[in-house]
């Protein structure tokens, strides 16, 4: 216990991130189950309005701030030093501060459940002035802001650490143009975090000043402006979307290349597209504000459309990597195929809603819920499972069962599409986001019924995954250093690696050191 509380080694900290994000994932998934149970039938009374508002707020907050984003950063913590041949991260103590700020911040958000008046209930976006009202949401909303303020500071610290590590701690021969794509995507993510998270910390601090110290930043009666909150929040919020996707692009790239037995196609294109996406994503924030009538819609529509180009480059390069390869459909590979199939739908609907005339109908409806779940759920979450199956043997020294894994994939893929595809049509039928009840009009009852059944299937798939983990850990069958015939440096050391990663550093003369042997 003390050993874990005081650990500074990047692998221990990486495991702390992975375990805590998976724990938050279980909680957030159960909350999703509650949402789908409530919406399974029209005019359902399983949850009342206040309970439902807390449930969807905590579900969104946890999945975004406590699962998808920190898992990518946590996995980077574990893998980046291994992939570039470094013994540890540049600042091990800073790294430990980061993980504890993250875990304490996440627990603080959930501590709101015990507060008088319940947990935060203003949505993961917490728009002011709604989030500044005290009735109904008292200390719970404060704890939400305090917790996420700690999480954002943690993310900034870890990003600095990752950048310095990537720039200055590479092993002899590991030039920048040889580091694996996953590490490159993490570098782009870290730059993005440094640009986008300070406004978030600022806006949360402003809300806390308003709530406790008599400020009026967002109150028009005192010369404040609610639009200011939206600007600051989305200046962070859109880049956050890419903080939740770039690491997973990297994961997919590594897994696809490994199981196609081919080096990554278009390495330079992959790197440039990662930075192009990061750069462009800093100039699109107000596409979340098209319906406010307070922003330049054409500017933000144009820059948003441009992101489709580097994203398209990634798809071309993944297909180019598989082209004429020797593809093995392992569980990890299946999850990456699922990522591509789902993410493509999320990307295409994303270009649609970047067009303001379409967004005027789609904004704040279930069409949007469908869109972002296809990118972050069908995309990032599938890559997350792919990463777990791929790197589990390296990290924990035991392998997950492939047959059970393929069942997990099948259940999650079928369940995911059954849950979220109907939502595109719910939006067009007039169902708004964040409603705790809806009337039995149009096809809403049928569509919601299908979605809730799909969620049940996803629940079974997720449970199967955790059974798989427990079984693998109890079986304790040791694995060789390179069970998948991977090409990057981490596969050239023991599973799990020794304390300082490599007893003897292998020669690095290309982008595929493990295949050079």
């Amino acid at each position: 216990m003390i050993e874990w509380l005081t650990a500074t080694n990047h692998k221990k900290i990486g495991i702390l991130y992975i375990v805590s994000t998976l724990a938050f994932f279980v909680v957030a998934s159960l909350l999703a189950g509650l949402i789908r149970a409530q919406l399974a039938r029209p005019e359902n009374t399983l949850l009342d309005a206040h309970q439902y508002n807390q449930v969807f707020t905590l579900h969104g907050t946890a999945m975004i701030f406590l699962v998808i984003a920190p898992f990518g950063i946590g996995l980077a913590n574990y893998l980046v030093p291994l992939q570039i041949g470094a013994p540890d991260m540049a600042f091990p103590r800073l790294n430990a501060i980061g993980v504890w700020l993250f875990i304490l911040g996440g627990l603080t958000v959930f501590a709101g459940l015990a507060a008088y008046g319940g947990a935060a209930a203003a949505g993961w976006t917490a728009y002011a002035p709604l989030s500044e009202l005290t009735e109904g949401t008292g200390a719970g909303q404060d704890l939400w802001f305090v917790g996420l303020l700690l999480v954002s500071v943690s993310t900034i610290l870890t990003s600095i650490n990752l950048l310095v590590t990537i720039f200055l701690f590479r092993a002899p021969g590991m030039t920048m143009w040889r580091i694996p794509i996953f590490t490159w995507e993490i570098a782009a993510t870290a730059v993005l975090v440094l640009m986008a998270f300070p406004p978030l910390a600022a806006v949360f601090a402003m809300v806390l000043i308003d709530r406790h110290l008599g400020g009026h930043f967002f109150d028009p009666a005192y010369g404040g402006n609610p639009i200011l909150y939206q600007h600051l929040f989305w200046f962070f919020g859109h880049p956050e979307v890419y903080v939740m996707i770039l690491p997973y692009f990297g994961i997919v790239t590594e897994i696809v290349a490994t199981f196609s037995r081919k080096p990554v196609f278009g390495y330079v294109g992959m790197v440039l597209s990662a930075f192009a996406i990061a750069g462009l994503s800093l100039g699109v924030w107000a596409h979340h504000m098209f319906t406010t009538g307070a922003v330049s819609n054409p500017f933000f529509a144009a820059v948003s459309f441009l992101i489709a180009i580097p994203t398209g480059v990634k798809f071309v390069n993944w297909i180019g990597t598989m082209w004429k390869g020797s593809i093995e459909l392992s569980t990890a590979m299946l999850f990456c195929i699922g990522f591509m199939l789902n993410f493509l739908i999320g990307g295409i609907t994303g270009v649609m809603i970047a067009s303001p005339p379409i967004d005027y109908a789609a904004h704040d409806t279930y069409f949007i819920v469908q869109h972002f779940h296809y990118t972050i759920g069908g995309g990032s979450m599938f890559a997350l499972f792919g990463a777990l199956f791929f790197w589990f043997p390296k990290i924990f020294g035991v392998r997950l069962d492939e047959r059970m894994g393929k069942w997990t994939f099948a259940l999650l893929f079928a369940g995911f599409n059954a849950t979220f595809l109907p939502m595109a049509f719910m939006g067009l039928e007039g169902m708004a986001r964040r409603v705790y009840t809806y009337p039995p009009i149009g096809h809403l009852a049928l569509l919601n019924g299908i979605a809730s059944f799909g969620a049940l299937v996803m629940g079974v798939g997720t449970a199967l995954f955790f059974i798989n983990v427990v079984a693998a850990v109890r079986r304790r069958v040791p694995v060789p250093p390179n069970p998948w015939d991977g090409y990057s440096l981490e596969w050239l050391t023991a599973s799990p690696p020794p304390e300082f990663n490599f007893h003897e550093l292998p020669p690095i003369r290309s982008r595929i050191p493990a295949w050079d042997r």
Partner: protein
Amino acid sequence: MKTFVGLFAASALFGIALAVAYWFVAHEEATGAALLGCMAAALVFTAGYAVVAERSADLDGDDPNEPLERVAGEELGIFTTRSAWPILVASCSLLTLAGTLWSPALAVAAGIALILCCWRLGAESARV
């Protein structure tokens, strides 16, 4: 070629271009222009740091044929494996923040503890 210097220089140029473009396309809108301006300034600052760091650093990784004599691990410096201060720094940060909202006494006490912990952490990291 020091790739990361080029990378930051390019991002800084892009940030400036984006801020200028925004200013002309949506010039009545001051909030976004200010945000993009700050972002561009931050990118210029990091690019400047990258230039300075590149001059002073002697990187093993940047030579494609670097010999392996300087093996990583212990050679790169000794890394600490455990420290009690980080978790205390994180806990004190939480308590200081919570105290600021609900209890000035807690804020002062936790704030002092936070400074102490940071100081001890700094002293410890100077040794190992």
